[in-house]
């Protein structure tokens, strides 16, 4: 009897400890959110979102060029990475056991692990140096390289989850292999693929390093992908590393917007995965 009581007590203590450390693990997240919210909220306003950065010393200034730049570059990066990612994902799912598939899978894992600054430098060497100018296009390429493994993985995993019976149903109607993939399997897995895209976007939307030597940043409103372009993380980097305290506030405001965007993307990815999931 006594033994039982002691064991119950031990159990309680153990549970309490686990809970305590779980809270500790969450603490950094709340600290980050709290700090950014506290420091950033004061800069938020409609003008902040709709005006260009002000020259040093002047009051005000906003991030509209960075918002546009992030939008453009992320859209371009998605457009660049989606087609190869979908095809590679199909290949990996359909030819699981091939030695080449295993190599591609391993390669993508390594690519995912390559530090983003290295990706930036590589694109600098391959694109910026060759063309002779910084451009949003090169920035988008760097981001695309980082999205590629994320989207490929989600396409592969999505296709693997689709029951084999669906593919057989299509093939048994005399439908070709290609049409079966593109008209039956990919549409059935659309939720997973969209989810992968959103996660990919969320991953690169906050990247500074790959853009430092590629898109470079710009204080002006630029919509031309062949010119240098700003982005949220770049503008945060520039504002935060400036000597002007007033710009530091803008950096906090931009951080808040960026965190909010990434958060919204993640929530959308989750909601979308639920809503669009196909019942088999």
């Amino acid at each position, binding site marked *: 009897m006594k033994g039982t009581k002691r064991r119950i007590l031990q159990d309680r203590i153990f549970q309490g400890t686990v809970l305590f450390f779980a809270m500790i693990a969450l603490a950094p997240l709340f600290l980050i959110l709290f700090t950014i919210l506290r420091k950033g909220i004061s800069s938020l306003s409609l003008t902040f979102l709709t005006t260009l950065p002000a020259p040093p010393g002047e009051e005000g200034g906003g991030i509209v060029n960075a918002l546009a730049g992030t939008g453009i570059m992320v859209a371009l990066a998605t457009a660049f990475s989606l087609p190869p990612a979908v095809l590679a994902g199909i290949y990996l799912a359909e030819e699981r056991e091939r030695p080449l598939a295993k190599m591609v899978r391993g390669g993508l894992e390594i690519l995912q692990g390559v530090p983003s600054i290295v990706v930036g430098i590589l694109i600098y060497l391959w694109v910026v140096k060759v063309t002779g100018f910084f451009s949003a296009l090169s920035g988008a390429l760097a981001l695309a390289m980082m999205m590629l493994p994320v989207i490929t993985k989600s396409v592969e995993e999505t296709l693997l989850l689709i029951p084999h*019976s669906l593919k057989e149903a299509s093939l048994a109607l005399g439908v070709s292999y290609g049409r079966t993939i593109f008209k039956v399997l990919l549409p059935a897995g659309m939720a997973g693929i969209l989810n992968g895209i959103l996660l990919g976007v969320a991953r690169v939307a906050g990247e500074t390093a790959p853009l430092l030597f590629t898109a470079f940043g710009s204080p002006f409103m630029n919509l031309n992908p062949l010119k240098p372009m700003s982005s949220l993380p770049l503008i945060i980097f520039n504002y935060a590393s400036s000597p002007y305290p007033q710009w530091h506030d803008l950096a906090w405001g931009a951080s808040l917007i960026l965190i909010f965007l990434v958060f919204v993307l993640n929530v959308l990815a989750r909601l979308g995965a639920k809503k669009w999931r196909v019942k088999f």
Partner: protein
Amino acid sequence: MESQVLSFQNFHAYFSEQEILKGINLDLEKNRITAIMGPSGCGKTTLIRSINRMHELTPGARSSGRVLLSGEDLYKMPAMLVRRRIGMVFQRPNPFPIMNIYENVVSGYTLNGIRKSRVELDSLVEETLRKVGLWEEVKEHLHKRGTFLSGGQQQRLCIARSLALKPEVLLLDEPTSALDPKATARIEELVVELAKEVTIVMVTHNIAQAARISDFTAFLYLGELVEYGQTEKLFTVPKDKRTEEYLSGKFG
């Protein structure tokens, strides 16, 4: 010869090195229901998947020998054309989850990129759904997902999907094993009805079901065709001892 649509001639099927079908010779009668029976693992599924060339889709699967469809060697035709002429219904109902009922019925056309006018498609859908006895039940819900139907309705939808392509042969692999008795009975009635216009080959584990609806029965054992003949005869006076033992429930 006229009445035989499908004819296996010294047909062998393999998974890698393993020989699954060991020299099958079998002639199936036109517009009749042939039941394929035999213990688990004897090669029933492999046999019917060889008819519509689905067997070869499994990595490492191959076959030799001939299967003739109305005299033409199926293995010399493009596999995709074979599959349009020979429909298949699977053990578990598998309607396309992203399509509604209407789209499921005509999927054989849309997925294959065969163009048809809206009017043609409309009447094809009605005609086919009537044929499988689903029209009255679903005519108000044609634009709802097929996956919302009951299991038995889904299976009839899958039969309709195959029938819409007007196949010469319909293959069914244990089509009722996932259904309740009532739904099973409806599928059985339907199959009997369909045999008027299409040749039916049906794998079944259910001896009573084979006896109820099939005209001919083929009994497979360990990849060999042990006995084949009219169902009545085969069930009442089996020639082979193994058939007799199977029918009396000695092995499952």
